[in-house]
């Protein structure tokens, strides 16, 4: 019986070994998805979608989501989730807005304060998850509500009873720093530069550094990683903080852009970021994934959300598309994982 299983897996292994290098890359599925989605919209959408303005139109939300997806993706590869990501965007938006308008602090201080808050909240998430050994899913789900609630309470306090905080752009004034975080440069929205930069740094760290090796090991098998001398707890704690900082960056970008912040900012972004990362080839079980994939996954996401408005298809179909893509991605990833693990799956 056992010998028979062994033979079968031997065959599977050699099959996988024969696949060309490219076909084994985790972002392959995302790339295929991008091609399919692009072809779909070329066939069905108005030509305006693929004009320069049209492309910017869908890349802009893709970039905002993508910055979150890079953080969520790295954390997922390390074997943890952060469901408080979307609420963190709202909370960081409140901290940023209140520092600027209520305390009239200069922009650099507001940015610093916002990121400090993100590090503290990310660190708190990490400490609770790692000290108690509870699943990050449930701990950060609690923070999804806590941070969203705190944002509402805080907004009412900062704006005297309203759930929207206005006048942020006026308080920020105009400086080089403002232009780094809002508006356009060379006709390209700044969040796109941030998106590319954050994704490039994330991809580089994952693939080319010692820390990247530790991220994969922490998610692949925390026990084995610890036995090999990897500081698993530190790696995960740092990634919780990085993810929260990604949320803070998105908060600053979108709040400055809108000039106001409200309680619904970042609503459900935690799920969208995880979906983008999964479409990009990240396994829900951790240990495997790609930041380039999460990058492509975010673009697919933006394309579908915005693209439908260019077609005759009812906008309400977008959630159906999204669910279907997620399902296909998970099935595909699961197949790849089984191939990679071979007999031990």
């Amino acid at each position, binding site marked *: 019986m056992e010998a028979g299983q062994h033979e079968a897996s031997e065959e599977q292994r050699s099959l996988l070994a024969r696949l060309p290098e490219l076909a084994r890359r985790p972002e392959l599925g995302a790339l295929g998805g991008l091609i399919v989605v692009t072809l779909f919209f070329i066939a069905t959408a108005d030509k305006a979608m693929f004009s320069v303005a049209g492309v910017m139109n869908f890349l802009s939300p893709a970039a905002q989501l993508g910055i979150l997806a890079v953080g969520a993706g790295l954390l997922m590869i390390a074997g943890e989730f952060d469901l408080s990501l979307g609420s963190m965007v709202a909370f960081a938006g409140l901290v940023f807005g209140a520092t600027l308008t209520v305390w009239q602090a200069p922009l650099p201080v507001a940015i610093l304060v916002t990121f400090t808050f993100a590090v503290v909240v990310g660190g708190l998430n990490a400490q609770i998850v790692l000290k108690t050994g509870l699943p990050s899913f449930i701990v950060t789900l609690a923070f999804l509500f806590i941070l969203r609630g705190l944002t509402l309470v805080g907004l009412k306090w900062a704006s005297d009873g309203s759930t929207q905080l206005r006048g942020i752009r006026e308080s920020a004034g105009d400086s080089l720093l403002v232009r780094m975080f809002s508006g356009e440069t060379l006709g390209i929205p700044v969040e796109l530069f941030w998106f590319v930069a954050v994704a490039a740094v994330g991809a580089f760290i994952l693939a080319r550094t010692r820390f990247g090796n530790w991220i994969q090991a922490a998610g692949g*098998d925390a026990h084995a990683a610890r036995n090999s001398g990897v500081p698993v707890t530190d790696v995960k704690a740092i990634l919780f903080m990085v993810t929260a900082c990604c949320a803070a960056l998105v908060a600053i970008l979108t709040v400055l852009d809108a000039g106001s912040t409200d309680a619904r900012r970042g609503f459900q972004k935690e799920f969208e970021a995880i979906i983008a990362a999964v479409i990009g080839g990240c396994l829900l079980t951790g240990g495997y994934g790609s930041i380039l994939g999460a990058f492509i996954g975010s673009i697919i996401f933006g394309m579908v959300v915005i693209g439908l408005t260019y077609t005759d298809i009812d906008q309400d179909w977008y959630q159906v598309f999204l669910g279907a893509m997620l399902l296909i991605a998970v099935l595909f990833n699961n197949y790849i994982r089984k191939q990679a693990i071979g007999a031990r799956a």
Partner: protein
Amino acid sequence: MTEGPLLEARDVVKRFGSVIALSGVSLEVRAGEVHCLLGDNGAGKSTLIKTLSGVHRPTEGQLLVKGEPVAFASPRDALDHGIATVFQDLALIPLMSVTRNFFLGREPVRRWGPISLFDREFAASVTRGEMTKMGIAIRDPDQAVGTLSGGERQCIAIARAIYFGAEVLILDEPTSALGVTQTAMVLKCIDEVRSRGLGVVFITHNVRHAMAVGDRFTVLNRGRTAKSCGRYEVTLESLQELMAGGALPAAA
């Protein structure tokens, strides 16, 4: 004392509360020697290797490395004394590449301005070279460990321990879950380790596997040394009988 044992356990006793796991076991491993540790389930093999590898501290008795008494604080401490243990889980991560696994926790870095990079070229060439020395041709050091056979994985874990300076290698049932071909591969690997002058403690409950590579044999039975002897003093049948806990012949 070059001819003395690399690692020696003297009358090691290990008690967990009122449970006696080991009641006086002695063992020595010399350079270029494979010492087989045999015993049925529950005989105390696991406790003994956990004691040798720094996981447990002996309740009584002594451990000596190259004749010097030692007390290991942790497996890391044992490793610093050149005692490396390859446990059954191998500490390998299936989804990661052979190279990344080989250097996990000890990644070589290359400076590139202020940034330090994981030196992939160096890591890949060392991995390939070390595996070749073990008699295993890795098709592609970037392939996931999960795609390799059980025997190959075992050999990666062994090659890694040696590369990072092990002088004594403790192998916890390396052949237990393997088929015939895979077992042959691991036994060949153990033979290679011996020929490089390392001491090996080979834990198994398969007498055939032990006879294939062993220089010395220690049989544990209910936490005691039932017999300890050299290659020419034993037969397959006598070892088998001892393991089964049969009548003990007069100690050799």
